């Protein structure tokens, strides 16, 4: 868990999709100032994050059998990055649900590094990106499974919907696995809104903007499915969709 000695550049793997202009004038001390969270053995900590402009970095240690949940909406710009470095002790779990949503020239990203440092830990990460204009949504998810961390179960899923031609998304899963009894699932898909579904919905009388909202609602909901508190889940969804209402064309 190295400190940065100099400002990173987009040549650094971990910052490859970052905004170079922002990086050039970033504050090194601030970048090295991680927010630390310790989840005691057997306990659950749930962190809700509204990502703001700039970079926010979390360093989390999850004790034996503990559970760390992170649910985040990244609707900020011009550059907004939320980063989490999570170390899991035996039988611990990391649950991450993130949504990047926005247009303009916003560059929104989630970066995670999940370290399965002992046997039997699990992690599940679901990131959904909805971008329009010339916005970019990124997910860099690094998973490290140390030697002897058998029975590790790590899953990662990224999907992006690009509402306009100029928008883009990048997914970069990175696996570094030194144990052999490991289950690692990852998937990534980037595409446009499903036109066939759009026509089907229109044929039932739904105006395009209503159909689009329903489809995006369902899409974004994946990221928050693991939120147990129904009210909180609803709030997160509403908050994400609100960005669509207020900003999307």
């Amino acid at each position, binding site marked *: 868990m190295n400190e940065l000695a100099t400002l990173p550049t987009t040549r650094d793997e971990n910052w490859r999709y970052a905004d170079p202009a922002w990086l050039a004038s970033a504050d090194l001390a601030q970048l090295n100032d991680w927010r630390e969270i310790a989840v005691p053995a057997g306990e659950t900590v749930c962190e809700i994050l509204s990502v703001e402009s700039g970079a926010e970095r979390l360093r989390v240690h999850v004790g034996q059998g503990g559970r760390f949940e992170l649910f985040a909406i990244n609707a900020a710009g011009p550059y907004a990055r939320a980063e989490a470095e999570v170390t899991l002790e035996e039988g611990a779990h990391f649950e991450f649900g993130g949504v990047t949503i926005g247009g303009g020239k916003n560059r929104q990203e989630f970066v995670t590094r999940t370290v399965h440092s002992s046997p039997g830990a699990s992690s599940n990460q679901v990131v959904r990106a909805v971008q329009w204009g010339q916005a970019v949504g990124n997910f860099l998810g690094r998973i490290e499974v140390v030697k002897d961390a058998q029975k590790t179960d790590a899953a990662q899923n990224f999907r992006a919907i690009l509402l306009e031609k100029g928008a883009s998304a990048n997914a970069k899963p990175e696996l570094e696995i030194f144990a052999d009894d490991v289950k690692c699932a990852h998937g990534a898909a980037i595409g446009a809104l499903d036109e066939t579904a759009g026509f*089907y919905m*229109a*044929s039932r009388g*739904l105006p395009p903007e*209503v159909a689009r909202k329903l*489809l995006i*609602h*369902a899409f974004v*909901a994946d990221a928050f499915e693991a939120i147990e508190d129904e009210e909180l889940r609803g709030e997160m969804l509403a908050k994400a969709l609100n960005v669509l209402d207020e900003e999307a064309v």
Partner: protein
Amino acid sequence: MLKIENLHAEVDGKQILNGLSLEVGAGEVHAIMGPNGAGKSTLAYVLGGRPGYEITQGTVEFLGQDMLELEPHERAAAGLFLGFQYPVEIPGVSNVQFLREALNAQRKARGEEPFSGGEFLKVAKEKAGLLKLDMEMLKRPVNVGFSGGEKKRAEMVQMGILDPRLAVLDETDSGLDIDALRVVGEGINTIMRAPDKAVLLITHYQRLLDVVQPDFVHVLAKGRIVKSGGPELAHQLEEEGYEAVAA
């Protein structure tokens, strides 16, 4: 109710409908039969206004309006229902939510009051019962994990809830076993057999027409109606095949 004149349409630059004309009056059921690739689904999509289907010539009038001027959702609000040959899956959106939004969007477009949750569920239950579809299925995402037959029955539940003036049903009988076929056919009769409604039934098989008895039968081949007649034409097609009858 529906008047199609000299319709020409192309998909991906390929001409598929070649001067198709057809008139459907209120209270009538018309069957359209024809070989694979004749353009039956294309006709359904063109009527529904599917993007990518370009009309190069001809007119379509629906209830006195120029239908080709309307957006797909406006056609639905005007009273058109399209039963899909391949109903589309919409993960994450429940049937109940989807259909209530759709029904209320249609009602709003027509200047009618929206249905409350309770009013909607009452109608939904009634139509699901009619088609013998478990109400639990309607709580699940649209068509996701439904068998072929369930999808077709769900289409007819949708039709019952949306209560259209004209239903264009594209091979609603395919994928149904004999019992389901009867349920679906009787559902179509209950929902659509009325003096102010009409049905355009696209099918390959006589067996659906035994239940939903058409007033007129047309043969569609190479993008146009090549022969029209009464119910006896369907029997003749079944016995002699398209080539012999349409030649």
